[in-house]
Each structure stands twice: as structure tokens, then as C-alpha cells.
């Protein structure tokens, strides 16, 4: 199994940390992982994206042009990455701020109202965990228990009290993701 993912959105949406939690979860279930952010001028322009690969085998290229899954969180990223999903792949997006929804018919498209749900839960910071939950539902590659283990490992001790909130957000995402 090899899952090649691009997560793309605005800086501050938690794109990079979502990728990091995903990668940590992969380690927790004894898989190989890579996490490659765009760190150059595009990042300084406000957009953020990260390529995450989870695999049972040694990972070859950490940078790619075609992905099994694209998690898209703003219009610029939709424009850039909709056509980078492999035929038969998955595109998961938050419709908030999307003017031109995806139109491809050779991939499966899912929607998650991450921003809206986060506002309803009263904490916009858990937006990325809701989206992560949506991803975990449509692509059950990382197990919830391993995500929690990954969170424990990646978060400093003083933030461990926030883990239950993150777990709730993931569950919320899992319940609310819908096929387009």
C-alpha cells in the first residue's frame, strides 16, 4: 500500500500540521512516511501545501506531480491541484470560499464543511482535525487510535489536555463528510 497525498490551502489553516499528524500516525502503525512542505516563495505569498506519503515500502520520491488524494482548502489550491489527482483518485474539499467547485468525473469527490463545523464547535483551530476526520472516513488508512498516539507524540505535554477536543473534531469530520 502506498498513499500519496497533497494537502493544500492557506497558511494558518493547519495544512502543515495536519500533514504532520498524518505522518506521525503512519509511524505509529509501523509504516514509512514522508512530509514535504512547499517552503519557498509560494509559502510566503500565503498559500501552504504539503505532500505526505504513507507506505508499506521504502518511499521513493518525496515530491510528486500526481496524487492518490488531494485535500483542498482554498480556490487557488483547487485551481492548482484538481488536475493532479490520479484517475480513480480522491479529491476532498471544504466548499468554504470555493467559487469553482471541482468538475472532474474520473475521480471521487467528497465535501467536508470543515470551516462551518469548526465554527459550530466554537473553535476554529480544530478546522484541520475535522478535515482530517473526513479524510480518515473516505480513506481508512490511518486508524484513529494511531492518530491519537501520533498527537501525543507530536504535541508538547502541556497541550495533551486538548487531545479529547481533537478527537471530537475528527469524529465530527468522519460523520459529516459527504460524496459530492
Amino acid at each position, binding site marked *: 500500500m502506498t498513499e500519496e497525498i497533497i494537502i493544500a490551502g492557506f497558511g494558518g489553516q493547519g495544512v502543515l500540521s495536519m500533514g504532520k499528524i498524518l505522518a506521525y500516525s503512519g*509511524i505509529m502503525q509501523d509504516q514509512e512516511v514522508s512530509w514535504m512542505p512547499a517552503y519557498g516563495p509560494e509559502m510566503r505569498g500565503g498559500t501552504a501545501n504539503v505532500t505526505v506519503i504513507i507506505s508499506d515500502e521504502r518511499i*521513493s*520520491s*518525496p515530491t510528486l*506531480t500526481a496524487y492518490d488524494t488531494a485535500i483542498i482548502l482554498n480556490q487557488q489550491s483547487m485551481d492548482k491541484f484538481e488536475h493532479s489527482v490520479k484517475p480513480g483518485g480522491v479529491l476532498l474539499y471544504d466548499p468554504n470560499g470555493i467559487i469553482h467547485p471541482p468538475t472532474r468525473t474520473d475521480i471521487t469527490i467528497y465535501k467536508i464543511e470543515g470551516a462551518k463545523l469548526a465554527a459550530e464547535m466554537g473553535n476554529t483551530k480544530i478546522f484541520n482535525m475535522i478535515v482530517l476526520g473526513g479524510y480518515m472516513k473516505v480513506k481508512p488508512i490511518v486508524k484513529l487510535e494511531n492518530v491519537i498516539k501520533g498527537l501525543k507524540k507530536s504535541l508538547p505535554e502541556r497541550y495533551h489536555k486538548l487531545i479529547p477536543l481533537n478527537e471530537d473534531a475528527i469524529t465530527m469530520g468522519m460523520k459529516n463528510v459527504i460524496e459530492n
Partner: protein
Amino acid sequence: MGELRLMKGNEALAEAAIRAGVDGYFGYPITPQSEVIEYLMSEKPHERTGMVVLQAESEVASINMLYGGGGTGKKVMTSSSSPGISLMQEGLSYLAGAEIPCVVANVVRGGPGLGDIQPAQSDYFQSVKGGGHGDYRLFVIAPASVQEMSDFVPLAFDVAFKYRIPSLIVSDGLIGQMMEKVELFDPIPRLTDEEVIARYPWATNGKPKGKERRILTSLDLDPHKMERHNWALQEKYKLIEENETRFELIGCDDAEYIIVAYGSSSRIAQKSIQLARKKGIKVGLLRLITLWPFPKKPIEEFVKNGIKGFLTVEMSAGQMIEDVKLVVEGRAKVEHFGRYGGVIHSPEEVLEALEQKLIGG
């Protein structure tokens, strides 16, 4: 099994420095390498091992701090990125001339000049042909994963001290910035002053009573003495070529074509090879681990066994290809492909180059 962590390449390099028993790190921040000194500062290694971490006033100061610290037999290290490494070239030549062990890491970015902050591999000539003056070599090793950013630090020190040669770890912005799983090695204790004195009779750490004064210098105005010193250096380099050449062969058993690559390009090329194999193209990868000494033997073997051609893949305009050609000596086709100036080639572009330049051409 050692501790598993998800780390950036730069962080793994920094953690490895602490664990390798380094006595002193001297550096100056530059993207895409700044996480090294940031990590070291936040980890406070002086509390863990007594290791000194100092932000020098410049790269020139850093490299000369290595000359001073390394001269006393201490384990010293610095890191930078391309423009900073250029500033260190004079110091590296002096360190090589005076045979002072140390480790320098270059997280290469696009050039020339100030260039940009994106990954590149265009410092190959500077790394292996000597960016400084004189007939000298560095032990040059190229990690291709975050794991190797960690593992190659103790290895670079072992070789540096065994042969009294500066070691250069050459990675790039891609390896430095990406995160992967790392199994950290168990810490190697720092040597005590007594152990340093006992182990390194050449080190200038005080004149023992009744013994000769020790001098570390790269200067000798007597040309005959300087020539003898150069002969000794060349003998040493020959020994390193015999003993310390490292490479990896991936999928080469039935290969008709070989991609030669190192570092991040070797990772990208592995994907290209997977794509090529799906199309029925028999291609393998020779991954260079040491850039100097250059792995000549596997190339010679491929030529003898009638390989159809080599494609060197490097994020440069074509530097490493020259060393491949020196081994091949016209007996097989050798082509180069690479994006550069900070652009990373895609696995598909490499495959296309393989098909057009080597197979179709």
C-alpha cells in the same frame, strides 16, 4: 531499536550532532538550513552533553573556529547553505592542508550567487573538485533521506578522524526541509580531555614536558618540504579511495540502462524507475553515497557488461556527469538530465529524458 521520531532533515542532522558527541558547533543562519542552529539552540546541548553551540558572526568565522577547535582534537562541526559554504572555501583549504578533522554540512540551494532558497545540486564541482585552492580533497557524502542526515554525522566524523580530513555532508533544501521517520542512534559520549590527548598525538592541546612542540599549519615555504607534504596527502587520498567509497545499486540486475544520481535526485529517480519498469524499460539506479571518493568501480562494471547507456540525473546543468564520463571513456552513451536554479524535476520528466535522450536518441 532506537527511538523513532518524525523529524526534518535539518533537525535530524542537529540531533545527530549532539548524539555523535560533538564538542562544538559553530554556525550562522541561512535558509534552507537554519533549523540546524535553531534546533541546537533550543535543545540546549550544553545541558545534555556539555556541547558548545555558538552563533558566529559570519561563515568565515565559523569555519575558522573549526580550524581552532578541530586543531585541539575536539569534534567540531558547522553547517550552512551554498552562499555560506562559498565563504568557507578558504578555510576548508587550510583545514585540508593542516589535516584537521571536522564536519561541514551543506544544505544546497539554487545558485549561482545568492540564488534562491529552493533545493539544488549545483554545488557538486565545489564539493568534489575543491572550491578552495590547492591539491586537496574532502570526504564528501550525500544523504538521500532524513535517516541518513542522522546516520552520516557519526560516519563523517569517523572518516574525518581516521584520515585527518575534513568531511562534507552534501544535502539540499529538499532533504533538509522534509520530514521522515528517523531511528535515532544511541548517544556516543564526548571524549574527555585525557582521552583526546591519548588518542590524537597530533592535536595541539598543550606541549607535554620533554616532547616536541606540535604545529598544525598549511604553510611551508620550502617547496621540497611542501611537495613531500602534498605527496603524503595524495597517498592518504588514495587510501580513502580504496577504503571509503560507498554506493547503492537498486534494480540493476537485469538493467539495460542505468540512472546515476545522488541525494534527492536519487529519490526522484527511484520513482521514475518504477514508472519506466511499468512500461517495460529495464532501467536501474546507481546511487552515489560518497561523491568523493567517486564510485568508479560500479560504472566500470556496467560498461564491461555492455550497458546500453547512462543517464545522470542531478539538479544542476550537468556537473556529476563529467566524473561518469571520465570512467566511461566513450565506451557507452552518457547523457544528463536535470532541472536547476531551485526547480525540482518530476519523476515523469526524468522518465521522459530517459526515453528521449537515451533510448530514442
